[in-house]
């Protein structure tokens, strides 16, 4: 058993870092329930004496449409990326193993470096500033990491199963639909929760592709609260809480899977 004094040392450090991690969040919480008159007069350390939910009701109205846009884009990105990710991972397993190197390079390619040609493409197609363009663009850029993610779950042992199915007369597509997909429940949960969070938090594509009200997402709309000269901090903080809630809830419930998304995507793939 560890001595009491060493346990105290451990807890002191853990609590110091805990404070560092939550103090900015705490000041966000206290400010979000402060009325506009009192912001700046009351220290962000303490709860306001007259708490109000007015900032939330104001911000919720502003964020309703962006949240709806975000969900439409999520639907496009997450569904397509999960299907393509598992499909192409299966393809690299049975056919073209070297293809995985292309996806690895893709993972380390900064999306912003392709922003100008991407914008031009969607403008040419007449889809600039639409939910479809944003959903499809994000889909294209998350496919490489999603393929690596699924590939790390598809062990070589799967090949024996595939071989058996082939002998039974199933073709490649049928094996994908009836053998691979049913065996992919865990990677599908990992991929969809992981992709949901990175898509929801994405700002760059919203900035260059969907700045208008028809396609802007919650995070982008939130950043616009800053563009006025003196930010109204209570509205901003209420906006922070509302727009982060889906992702934070997902992390609290499925955090293990989302982390697995980060580590599996970077794990063994070749």
């Amino acid at each position: 058993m560890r001595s009491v004094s060493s346990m105290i040392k451990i807890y002191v450090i853990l609590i110091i870092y805990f404070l560092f991690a939550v103090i900015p969040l705490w000041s966000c919480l206290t400010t979000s329930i402060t009325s506009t008159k009192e912001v700046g007069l009351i220290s962000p350390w303490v709860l306001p004496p007259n708490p109000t939910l007015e900032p939330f009701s104001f911000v919720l109205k502003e964020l309703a449409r962006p949240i709806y846009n975000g969900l439409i884009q999520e639907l496009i990105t997450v569904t397509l990326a999960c299907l393509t990710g598992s499909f192409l991972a299966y393809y690299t397993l049975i056919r073209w193993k070297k293809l995985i190197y292309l996806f690895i390079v893709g993972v380390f390619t900064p999306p912003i470096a392709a922003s100008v040609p991407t914008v031009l493409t969607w403008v040419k197609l007449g889809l600039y500033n639409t939910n479809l363009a944003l959903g499809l663009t994000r889909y294209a850029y998350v496919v490489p990491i999603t393929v690596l993610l699924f590939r790390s779950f598809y062990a070589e042992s799967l090949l024996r199963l595939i071989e058996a199915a082939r002998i039974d007369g199933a073709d490649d597509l049928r094996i994908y639909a009836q053998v691979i997909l049913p065996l992919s429940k865990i990677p599908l949960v990992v991929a969809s929760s992981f992709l949901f969070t990175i898509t929801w938090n994405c700002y760059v594509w919203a900035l260059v592709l969907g700045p208008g009200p028809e396609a802007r997402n919650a995070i982008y709309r939130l950043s616009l609260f800053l563009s006025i000269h003196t930010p109204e901090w209570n509205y901003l903080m209420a906006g922070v809480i509302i727009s982060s809630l889906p992702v934070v809830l997902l992390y609290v419930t499925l955090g293990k899977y989302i982390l697995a998304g980060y580590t599996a995507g970077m794990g063994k793939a070749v």
Partner: protein
Amino acid sequence: MSNKRFHHKPSFFTVLVVIQLAFVFYFVFACIGFNILISFTDWSGLKPLTEINLIGLENYVKLIFFKREFHISFLNNMLIYAIVVPASIGIGLLLSSLLHIAGRSEPFFRTCYLLPFSLAYVVVGILWLYVYYPNIGILNTTLKFLHLPERHWLSEPQTARFALLVPMIWQYSGFAALVLLGGLRSIPLEIMESAKIDGASGFTMFRYIVLPHLRYPIYFLYVIISTWALMTFDLIWIMTGGGPGVETSVLSILGYKYAFGYNYFGLGAAVFTLLTLLNWGLALPVYFYLQRRGV
């Protein structure tokens, strides 16, 4: 055999593969290719596409030898890389070894440490902008309470440059701690027990048992955090926009400003190309090493 394949009608399976690959290939690789092409031209917003000239490496020469904002942005990227990556991994190491022996309260701390990581960069930027805000921010009100001098943290180049590193470390250390905690959990207990019986001190066990076991998670963290450090955009864009002046600018912000702010598409594309090459150069070798070793 190959003959037979050529005369066959392509199967639906092949068609599906080709469609998906083509879509991804277009956006991820062809667009990067177009970007590289643009970087060899003098395209700026006012010119019609027919009057664009190929100017070879002129944009790159201009950036590397004459543009002060490019030098500052590059050095800021390197500063972030040199401080944020080791600091996050170091704090992560400390926290994970403490969490490992913390006992029943571990899930509580683990959840709280991961909270900052779950937030969008924009949200982190807003939170920390508020922390640093003059007069009403939590940092300055605390300093005032302690009768210490307040500062405009994000308006002075010297403090702004380092003030921006704190939110990044704030976000990444918790993530690093949890990844490393996974590695610590996989160390067989018998090894630790027998080392203890042999009289190994805490430090010796850390240096000769724990660290070697955590080698691959640490390489992995190096790869992923250095990628984030080089690609960083949203956080700085929200907090300072690269200012004051260009003092806190980084390559992604500089490229974005050239391309979308001033319509110097050629110059912006050159910055983006250099950023891509830098990212490949710093992350890919370690990643392939990790793959060869088979994590």
